């Protein structure tokens, strides 16, 4: 996904009280690769997996986690 977008870090501005879902929707509108993968992405906020309804705070780091293949 990062290869397709050609960036491993993106910034997004959100309204106060925005959630993980809002961030994901906003990024998906700008990047087709994220929209394509959105249904199978997990999200971590500040290095913890979080559900989509998690409220975000100013300066949070959100990581989009595509399907994993460790081991």
């Amino acid at each position, binding site marked *: *996904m990062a*290869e397709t977008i050609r960036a491993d870090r993106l910034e997004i501005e959100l309204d106060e009280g925005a959630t993980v879902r809002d961030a994901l929707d906003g990024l998906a509108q700008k990047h087709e690769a994220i929209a*394509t*993968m959105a*249904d*199978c*992405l*997990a999200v*971590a906020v500040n*290095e*913890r*997996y979080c*559900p989509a309804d998690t409220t975000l705070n100013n300066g949070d780091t959100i*990581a989009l*986690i*595509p*399907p*994993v*293949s*460790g*081991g």
Partner: protein
Amino acid sequence: MPAVQPAPVIDVQIVDHPVRCVERARLPHTAGGECVFLGSTRADVHPVYGALRRLTYHAYAPLAIRTITELAEEACRRFDCTIVRIHHALGDVGPGEVSVLVETACRHRDQAFSACRFLIDRLKETAPIWKRETWADGTTWSRGNPVVTDEDTACPDTSSS
């Protein structure tokens, strides 16, 4: 009178080379069973790109360490482990080389087997680690599994490149 159970030893490492088989852990005397699982690169042939040359592992390391450590702590609670050791490779891992080591020591063998199986299965489901496959004539991303969430997921096939 049963022996006092020492605090479990947890050793989680993400290393930037193939995993080296470490010296057998010095077991607390309360451990009666020990399991070691080694995951290695399997020699394989892609129908289009030919023979596998290597796997290259990438990770979101801070979350990977946290996720694997929390799995180790859960294993200690559920299976009464005295030792949990998990080492995972990053970078190139060639055929026959080891990408992951999971070692568990418990009071009894059933617990050790169960803990080891639990850890490698959950690591593969949740740790933010990815592997790229380099074949003789091309590369692909291993398709992988969505991290387990509350929602069912259906992923597009983005594995080839």
